[in-house]
């Protein structure tokens, strides 16, 4: 099944903007509405849009599901590692050990930015992996 040229072109042109918006939501999660989960879902939607408008195989060449799986594990391991870093530096698990900046700036949250980025990457990878698994399933239907 091939979608029409209009849809393909618009999806292709829209893709970078959606990705940009997703990264904005992730990185400004502690300053404005948004955060890791929301931004991650938006990033995942970008991949889903590309896969729906173009063919699945073509998208999978760019975003391989093996890499996405690895990214997902990496996100969670980063979170746990950041938690353990608190223990090693003499605070407790998951505590914010970075100095707080001026309120309203992007560095103001300390560790929050890194939490958001790890969660965002993990959610984006997870959503697209679910999509791949559901789409590629060819059971005996």
């Amino acid at each position, binding site marked *: 099944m091939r979608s029409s040229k209009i849809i393909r072109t618009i999806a292709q042109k829209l893709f970078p903007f959606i990705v940009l918006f997703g990264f904005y939501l992730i990185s400004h999660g502690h300053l404005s509405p948004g955060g890791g989960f929301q931004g991650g879902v938006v990033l995942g939607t970008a991949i889903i849009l590309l896969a729906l408008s173009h063919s699945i195989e073509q998208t999978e060449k760019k975003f391989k599901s093996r890499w996405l799986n690895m990214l997902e594990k990496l996100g969670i391991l980063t979170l746990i590692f950041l938690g353990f870093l608190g*223990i090693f530096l003499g605070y407790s698990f998951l505590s914010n050990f970075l100095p707080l900046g001026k309120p309203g700036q992007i560095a103001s949250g300390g560790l929050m930015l890194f939490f958001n980025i790890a969660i965002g990457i993990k959610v984006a990878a997870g959503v697209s992996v679910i999509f791949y698994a559901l789409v590629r399933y060819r059971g005996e239907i």
Partner: protein
Amino acid sequence: MSIHIPILIIISPLLAAFLVLLSRKYKIILATASIITSIVFTLTLSSRVLSGDKVTYHLGGWRGPLGISLVVDELSLFFSLIVLGLGLLVIVYSMPERNYGRTYYFLLLVSLSSMIGVIYTADIFNMYVFYELLSLAVYLLIAYPKTGVTLRASFNYLIMGGVGLSFFLLGIGFLYAMTGTLDMFHIAGRLPAAFDSSMQMVIMSFVLIATGMGIKIAVFPLHGWLPDAHSMAPSPVSALLSGITVKIGIYCLIRVVYTVFSTEMFLLISSHNILIVLGVVSLLFGASMALVQKDLKRLLAYSTINQLGIVLIGLGIGTELGLTGALFHVLNHAIMKSTLFFCAGIMITETGTREVKGLSGFGRQQPAITFAFIVASLGMIGIPPINGFASKWLICLAAVEAGYTFPVVIILIASTIAAAYYFRVIQVLFGGSLKQGPMPAHEGEQVIHRGNLFRSWPIYILAAGCLLLGLLPALGISLVKPAVSLLLFHVVP
């Protein structure tokens, strides 16, 4: 480093779970090592906890009602030791099975770690999150063989469990609306004032939480998922479900009843009578349904409903003796039911059938396993030298002392019915010679030998535990005693 022990107990199986997914070879070693690490950590905590002071850990350094804290007291120590000990045996038992891949060990470790998370947390919403994590892992473990029956059982459990946890979450919402905090000890401190101003909301929140947990521990009208899920799952998973996972529901119920809603309020809204009635009904129902089952594992699953009814009666009586009996029965049931499911797993792979009738002659072939099965089933019935007797007797004594004679009669009747169905199985085990029916697909003698070695150790250990706790019930009671005194005479910190 020593102050971080409570979080390390939870995180080490969780970290091992993700490492299992990354490494292909060392999955079993990683799983075993992480659980042993957790057990060692727990044992180092135990001396501090048993000497009387609570171990508290503030996550992220936020104390009190602001953040989440972990509290290890006598009750949580007792339950976490059961979970970790049996979890280790479940991992050892599932070692020889070759087709359990990485996902199996991942889910097993996640479920064990989330159980400890449920047990240690002092924050009621965090308890919900961990319970949902536990449930997701357990749904997948049930569906692990991916046959039609297991998928159906898993889906039924998902629907029922989802509804139950939604009820639980709504109950948490009611509690938050009344008290404005989520920390259980702070809720307990503020609830009496809320009880004076709006009694019906307190009752409603209790009903919601109790209904949610009632679905999880399968009391009579809400038991629909249990027989399918417990009997269709692979045998180690059945032992995990029936031995430990159901006990987590009981733990949550005890926590909510005795810590969040205090004992006085519990008596004031007369919910102890409801617990006793539910216990009696599910006791009778489980016993009578188990009597007519032909499938061995389904029989054991209905027997779980039966035994949980006894625990509920003990909880409902609520005196010191009754609570001691109930908690002791939790320990005993965990040990006995895991033994039975482990034995059932071996029987099913050896004879190739799930029917009780097909087991005839197994007793002559493998006398040691059969002996363990008989020990555990005698304990289930409640025959003196085995541990099940001691706890049942304590509960009966407590019921007579508190003036409930009717439950005692019912417990005795149910024990007779239990004797009927367990003796039927034992009789078949020693019956005629093993029928050469459809033999299972054994390829190569070597696999079977290795399997038998790793599969029989856990059974012998558990059966020895049954006999030990039965001959020296004072040992088990001394394990339970600190938790009971915490529950009845606790002080809000």
